[in-house]
C-alpha cells in the first residue's frame, strides 16, 4: 500500500492504461511538456512520446471532434479540458455528434473527456463550474464523478475501457486534499454505474457526489456527535446512468432523503433523483425529499461570496437535522 493523492491516483490510472493499451492517447491544451495545468499528465510525453500525448490548439470542439473520429477508427482517446468550464465550447460536438453516433449510425465512439471541475478554490465564474447537468440530459453520454482517490483511479481506468463516451469530472478541490492508501501492483477498477455506500446510518440518507461527499461526511460526524443521529451517506460516483437500485436501497433504509450537490439548484441532478424516488419509493418516505445545493447564481470570486453561494458543511448539518426532526 502507498498513500496517494486523488490527483496522483488519477495520474496512475491514466499511466497504467497508456501502458496497457497502445490505442490509448491523450490530447488537450498544454498536456505535453507542461504536463497539464494541474500536472495530471506530467512526465507522460517523455514516456509515451508526442504522438500519444498531443498538445493541441485552444480548440475544444476540435479536441473532442478529433477524439470522436479517432474513436470511430478504433482508438481510445482521452481528451483533456484544461478546466471543465471550457467543455461548453465542445457542447455541440459532444451532444450532437458524440452522444448520437452509436444510435444514429452504429459508430463505436469510446472516448473520455476529462477535466478539473468544481469550486471552493476561489476560481471565479469560469474556473469553478460543475457541468454535469448540462450533459446529464443527453442520452448516449456517461458521466462519472469520483470523490475518492480510489475512484479517481478506478473510474478513469473503467472510463477508458468503456465502449461508450464518458465525461470524467475530477474535482480540483480534492486533487491534493484527498489522500488514500491504494494497493500497489493490483488492478483498481471502479465499475461505471455503481454507487458506493460511504457511511451507514438509520436516521437520514444523504445522496451526494464529488466534493460535497466530504462535506456530507463531515456533517454526518458532527450530527452523530452533537445530536446522536446516524446519517447514511451514498456516494453516487456515476451520475449517468444513475444507480437507481442503490438510491432506493438507502431510501428504504432511512426513509428520509437529503440530496446534496455543489451544482446550482434549478435543473440540477437533485431534481431528477427526487423524481425517481417519488416514482419508485414514494410509500417509503417519512418526509419530503430535500435539497442542499449552490444558490442559483454564477459562482463569484470573493471568498465571502463563494462561501455563501456554495453548500457548506453547516448547511448540510442544519438541513439534515431539520429533516430528522420532521
Amino acid at each position: 500500500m502507498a498513500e496517494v493523492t486523488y490527483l496522483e491516483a488519477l495520474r496512475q490510472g491514466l499511466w497504467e492504461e497508456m501502458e496497457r493499451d497502445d490505442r490509448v492517447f491523450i490530447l488537450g491544451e498544454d498536456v505535453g511538456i507542461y504536463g497539464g495545468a494541474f500536472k495530471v499528465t506530467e512526465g507522460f510525453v517523455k514516456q509515451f512520446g508526442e504522438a500519444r500525448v498531443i498538445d493541441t490548439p485552444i480548440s475544444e470542439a476540435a479536441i473532442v471532434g478529433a477524439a470522436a473520429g479517432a474513436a470511430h477508427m478504433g482508438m481510445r482517446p482521452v481528451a483533456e479540458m484544461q478546466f471543465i468550464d471550457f467543455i461548453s465550447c465542445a457542447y455541440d460536438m459532444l451532444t450532437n455528434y458524440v452522444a448520437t453516433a452509436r444510435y444514429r449510425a452504429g459508430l463505436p465512439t469510446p472516448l473520455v473527456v476529462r477535466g478539473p471541475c468544481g469550486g471552493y478554490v476561489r476560481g471565479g465564474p469560469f474556473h469553478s463550474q460543475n457541468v454535469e447537468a448540462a450533459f446529464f440530459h443527453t442520452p448516449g453520454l456517461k458521466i462519472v464523478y469520483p470523490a475518492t482517490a480510489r475512484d479517481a483511479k478506478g473510474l478513469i481506468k473503467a472510463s477508458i475501457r468503456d465502449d461508450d463516451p464518458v465525461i470524467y469530472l475530477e474535482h480540483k478541490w480534492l486533487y491534493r486534499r484527498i489522500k488514500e492508501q491504494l494497493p500497489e501492483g493490483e488492478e483498481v477498477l471502479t465499475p461505471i454505474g455503481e454507487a458506493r455506500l460511504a457511511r451507514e446510518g438509520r436516521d437520514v440518507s444523504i445522496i451526494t457526489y464529488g466534493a460535497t461527499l466530504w462535506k456530507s461526511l463531515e456533517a454526518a460526524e458532527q450530527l452523530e456527535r452533537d445530536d446522536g443521529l446516524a446519517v447514511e451517506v451514498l456516494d453516487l460516483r456515476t451520475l449517468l446512468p444513475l444507480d437507481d437500485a442503490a438510491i432506493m436501497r438507502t431510501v428504504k433504509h432511512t426513509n428520509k432523503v437529503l440530496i446534496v450537490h455543489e451544482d446550482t439548484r434549478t435543473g440540477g441532478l437533485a431534481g431528477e433523483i427526487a423524481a425517481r424516488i417519488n416514482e419508485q419509493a414514494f410509500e417509503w418516505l417519512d418526509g419530503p425529499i430535500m435539497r442542499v445545493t449552490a444558490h442559483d447564481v454564477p459562482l463569484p470570486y470573493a471568498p465571502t461570496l463563494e462561501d455563501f453561494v456554495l453548500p457548506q458543511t453547516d448547511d448540510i448539518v442544519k438541513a439534515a437535522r431539520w429533516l430528522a426532526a420532521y
Partner: protein
Amino acid sequence: MASRTAAATQSPPIPAGLSRDQLLEIYRYLRLTRTLEERLTALYRQSRVVGGLFRSLGQEGESVGSAYALERGRHRDFLSPLIRNLGSMLVMGAEPVQILRQYMAKAESPTRGRELNIHFGDLERGYLGQISHLGDMIPVMAGVALTFKLRAEPRVALVYIGDGGMSTGSFHEGINFAAVQRLPLVVIAEYNCWAYSTPPAKQFATAHLADRVRGYGVPAVTVDGNDVLAVYEATRLAVERARRGKGVHAVEVKTYRRKGHAEHDDQHYVPQEELERWARENDPIDRYIKRLVDRGWAEDADLKDIDERVRAGVDEATDACVDEPVPEPESALPAVYASPPTAERLWFRGL
C-alpha cells in the same frame, strides 16, 4: 467495335492518367446520382419520402470527381460527405437501395429508420455520415486522419465543406488543428453560391474560399467545379500530397446549387436567368458528355447504354424497397449505449 478502336486512336490522349473505362465509370456515377435523385423527387411527390429531399443538381460533377480521386475499397481512403454529395457516397460504394430506404425511413435502411436522407456511413467502404451541424465533420475527419498518421497507414481522409459551413467555428478549429498536426486530410470547399438563401457576399468577405483556407497554411487551388475531370485532377494531386505526409490540402470547387435548399424551397431569392444560364451552359453532366464525345473518348451509344442500365438499376432498387415495412416502434430503444444495450421501456407504456 471497329469504329470504337478507330476513335480511340485518333482522339487526344485522356488526361489525368485515366483509362477509357474509368471515364465511362465516372459517367456512370454522374448519371446514377442524377437518376437516383430524380427517382427520389418522384417518390417525394408521392409522399413516400418521409422528410425533406435534398438535391445535388448541378453539383454532381464535383462530388463524383473528388471522390473518384480516392483509393477505394475495404480499409482504404475515407470521406465524409455533405447533403449535396450523394455522388461521392455512390463512388465509395453506397448502394442506391440504401439511399432509397433511408429517404423512405424503412426498417432495413442503413440506420434502421433512425436518421434521415444520406446521413449514414460505412466504416468498411470508407465513408462517415455527416450530422446537420455544418463544420462538425472537419474535426471528426481530422480525428480519422490523425488515426492514419498515428498508425503510419498511407490513407487519406477527405471532407466536404460549403461556402456557408465554412463560417462555423468547428470548421476553423478543425482545419487549424489538422494543419498544425500535418494530417493527411483533403478539404473540398464547395462554392455553390447559396447557403439556404444566403449568398457568399453575406457569408464572408473574401473572393474565394481558397483565400480563407490559405490563412491556415493549407495549400489550396480553385477549380471549375462543373468540370469533372478538373476536379478529379486537382483532388488527385491533393490526395497524393496528403498521402505523402505533406499535410492538409484544399480544393475549392466553383459550382452552383440549381435547386432550393430542399424540395420545399421555391428559390424565389434566386435570379431566374442565373438559374437558366447555369442549366443551359454549365451543367456538369452535359459538359462531360460533350467532352467525351467531341474528343472521341466515348460514343453516344456507349452513354445511352449506361443511361439505360442505370435507370434499370434504380428501377430495380425502387421495386425492391418501396413496399418494405417501416421500423417496429420499440426498435427505437436499443443501442443508445453499448452498455446497457437497450433503453428502459417507460412504465406508462405497460398500463
